[in-house]
């Protein structure tokens, strides 16, 4: 048996169970949409055969950002808004690692908004999951940038004043966007399919996941949860494929080519019905880490020779 065959057999034998990706017991509230996201990600890790030691979940602060604690991989639960630059540093130092980012609508679209815009532009090979529940949960119900106008919260007791920002249209407006999708926590099958496509995309994949917060805004998505016709499934041979069982429920479908960015921007502007699927996918956008790490190995000799060459430029010889 050749070494290559042995390696393949070994890898094949390495299949892990769902339990092997489960970390601490989640402390989210009952009925929280984050549980659905966690399950989809654990299933993704198992099905894609990700080695736990080669996988890092990075997060900021907020309910969403507790997720790494519930995975049995490497995790980095950092500071508010800064998950993306931390993840970029990890990826640039270690392109061999699978890097995921879990962030919330406050973490990504408010305190970390600058990093969000630039992360899209860097287009590093990172899977970003925006847990968007339209509210600050961990700090107990304050308005977020994605809260619909009129949202009553502890800081807007008479209703919020501004129109919600759309993370999808913003992302699609940034240069180098390469993968933009939307999922909802209450259609787990599509959620799983979309995060799988996101993971498989080489570049920054941005998945906005509408996520229910029963504790603070329990009725936020009720109309859509109860009326499947108010969901718009985006199907395409290069995009989401809706299973026959699901087709019976979600009959409102359109064929959308994920390479069509103008149409993607139109669809992204729709709040009702809520689109689900891959809005944009362009595998040809270069990744920052590929542009920056141009095959130069850093060795003692390379450091020594470039160091000596630099000193030569500034040396005054006797």
């Amino acid at each position, binding site marked *: 048996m050749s070494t290559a065959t042995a390696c393949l057999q070994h890898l094949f034998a390495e299949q892990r169970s769902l339990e092997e990706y489960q970390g601490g017991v989640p402390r989210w509230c009952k009925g929280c949409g984050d549980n659905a996201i966690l399950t989809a990600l654990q299933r993704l890790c198992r099905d894609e055969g990700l080695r736990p030691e080669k996988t890092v979940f990075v997060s900021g602060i907020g309910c969403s950002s507790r997720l790494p604690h519930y995975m049995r991989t490497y995790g980095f*639960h950092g*500071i508010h808004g800064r998950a993306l630059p931390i993840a970029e540093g990890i990826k640039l130092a270690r392109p061999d690692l699978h890097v995921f980012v879990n962030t919330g609508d406050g973490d990504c679209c408010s305190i970390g908004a*600058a990093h969000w815009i630039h992360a899209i532009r860097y287009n590093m090979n990172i899977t970003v999951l925006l847990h968007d529940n339209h509210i600050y949960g961990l700090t107990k119900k304050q308005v977020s940038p994605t809260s619909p106008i009129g949202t009553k919260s502890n800081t807007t007791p008479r209703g919020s004043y501004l129109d919600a920002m759309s993370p999808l249209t913003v992302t699609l407006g940034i240069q180098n966007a390469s993968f933009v999708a939307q999922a909802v926590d209450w259609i787990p099958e599509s959620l799983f399919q979309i995060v799988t496509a996101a993971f498989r995309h080489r570049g920054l994949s941005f998945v906005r996941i509408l996520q229910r917060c029963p504790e603070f805004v329990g009725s936020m998505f009720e109309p859509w949860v109860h009326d499947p016709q108010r969901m718009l499934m985006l199907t395409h041979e290069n995009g989401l494929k809706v299973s026959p069982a699901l087709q019976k429920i979600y009959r409102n479908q359109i064929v959308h080519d994920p390479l069509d960015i103008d149409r993607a921007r139109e669809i992204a502007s729709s709040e009702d019905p809520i689109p689900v699927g891959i809005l944009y996918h362009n595998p040809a956008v270069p990744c920052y880490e590929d542009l920056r790490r141009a095959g130069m190995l850093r060795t003692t000799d390379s450091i020594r020779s470039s*160091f000596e060459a*630099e000193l030569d430029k500034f040396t005054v010889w006797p």
Partner: protein
Amino acid sequence: MNAAAELMGSRNTAKQVVTIGEAVVEIMSDSGEGAQKCGQSFGSIAARMGNGVWTVEIIPAEIQPPARSIAGASGNRIRIGSKRVTNGGDEADLAIAFNEQVLLGRVNAGELKPGCIILLESMWADSADPKIAAQYGETLARLLAEGYRVHEVPMESECRKLVSDPRKGKNMFVLGMLCNLYSLDMDLARDQIAFIFGKKADKIIKSNVALLEAGHAWAEHNLDFGFRVPAVRATEPQLVINGNTAVALGVLASGMDICAMYPITPATSASHYLSDVFERSGGLVHQAEDEIAACAFAIGASYAGKVAVTITSGPGYSLKQEGIGLAVMAEIPLVVVDVQRGGPSTGQPTKSEQSDLLTVMFGSHGDAPKVVMAASTIEDCFHSMITARRIAETFNMVVVVLSDASLATAQQPFPRPEFNEDWLAPPIDQNPVPEGAKPYDWDPVTGLSRRFVPGQPGGMHTLTGLAHDRSSRVAYDPEINEQGMHARSLKLAALQKMLTPPKVFGDDEGDLLVVGWGSTKGAIEESVERMRAEGHKVSSLHLNFLQPMAPGIKEILHRFRQVITIEANWSDLPEDPLIDETNRRYSALAMLLRARYLVDIDCWSEVRGRPIKPGSICAVLRQRLAREEQRS
């Protein structure tokens, strides 16, 4: 006959060449006229002859300030000496100015010695603009009245004899004059021109050499004075670089792979240089979208790989502090360079100050112990980076290296370092972690724990900025919180035990000890030498480690009757009517030393944006010694 011999043949017999121990020269022009290139070249030639040299840039804050304006002065101060020169010295002995306005700024700031020799471009006297001609006339009259020895030099018209655009070549004419006035070797000067225009055509080199020789000849024939600063050629190769280049070379030599930064004066030139050279050996500079991202990026890179560095200045440091606190809490090694400038807020971006010490020591909320080092010379900027990387990695700590705008742009020759493989970071550990090992298995004595790097099988854990136990699980338990705090603090003590006591400059005991840190070292030691030559029992102590402080300092402080710190940050003036012992704000180091060693330490400080002069320090020391004598 070569050009040098030709010049020798036409020596001005009336010329008096005086041998001197040292000289301070300033060259001032409008921005873009090349005074800086002229000054750097003058310093390099003198360095190659074996003179001690220190050059300081005089930089306007704007890119294109208006011509002929006081604030627009751009140039160099060069101090050359027979012995090693460690600082920019006192007031200038000779100043060359391309117009009278740029010179005025220096005169008003008190940067010229009384009776200073001034070589002034004379073309403005005949300006078509009557306002300019009048300004020139008034200034010339004022300078003469104030006793300056002004020589009007027709630089423009002399250069026009050789080139069509004198504005571009005047600086080499001036270099030629300086070579004549300070008896520098013209062959070395020609080599220098070939070196600076190395990538350009021969024609350009030839035309600049012609200007150089013309300047030399003009000074030979028209100026009846000259100086010689005797020099002994160095026997070892010397490196001539500024502090920021030294920082960048230190990053390269330390084996760090990634530098994340955001542009900020006066730190950026370190990253410019690194951007140019780092990739050739597989490293890279990432210009992040902001200071916070630069810090977070470096933290991410450090967490997953080798120690990374972020280089900034005060305002950027303020923004990075939350990230630095995370690195402290999660015990991620990180090197942060703060090239200090004037503060607070935007302050004085191009000027030097030492105002960030307390911020970097105590900054970031909560108890956030980190290592703080201060580079005191340009050579030290280089070695500090290597030491910082090693400490960060050994202790899983944040190490802040303080430099400042003075060191950043000053140049001084120092022995060329010999590359040492031990400087480099070891490869990252990807072995499985031992069975049962925990990511924060704090040693009860040293507080140290091993670092688990992603990729290590069996080491999976979620690192967090929340309080956590040995397994990195979030824990708000009172015992666990204290355990973590305890371990992170102990690491400083563990490092402190490895440090050697600093050496006293001068005698080990005496009447007055001067304590300093950072870029003031050269000026402080020079003033101690001067005071000792006058018979005073004065010594100095310079601290490279500010946190932790090396052992043995207390004993040293107790061997002197008086102790004073000299610093470039604010301290209240005891003579102010409202200031007394109960409210006086001391300089940063004085405050730290008083608190730690319970010694009544005085301070003197200056925040004038320029390097502290040895003469100013001597005046303070004389006053303090006299006051003590009166008392006893």
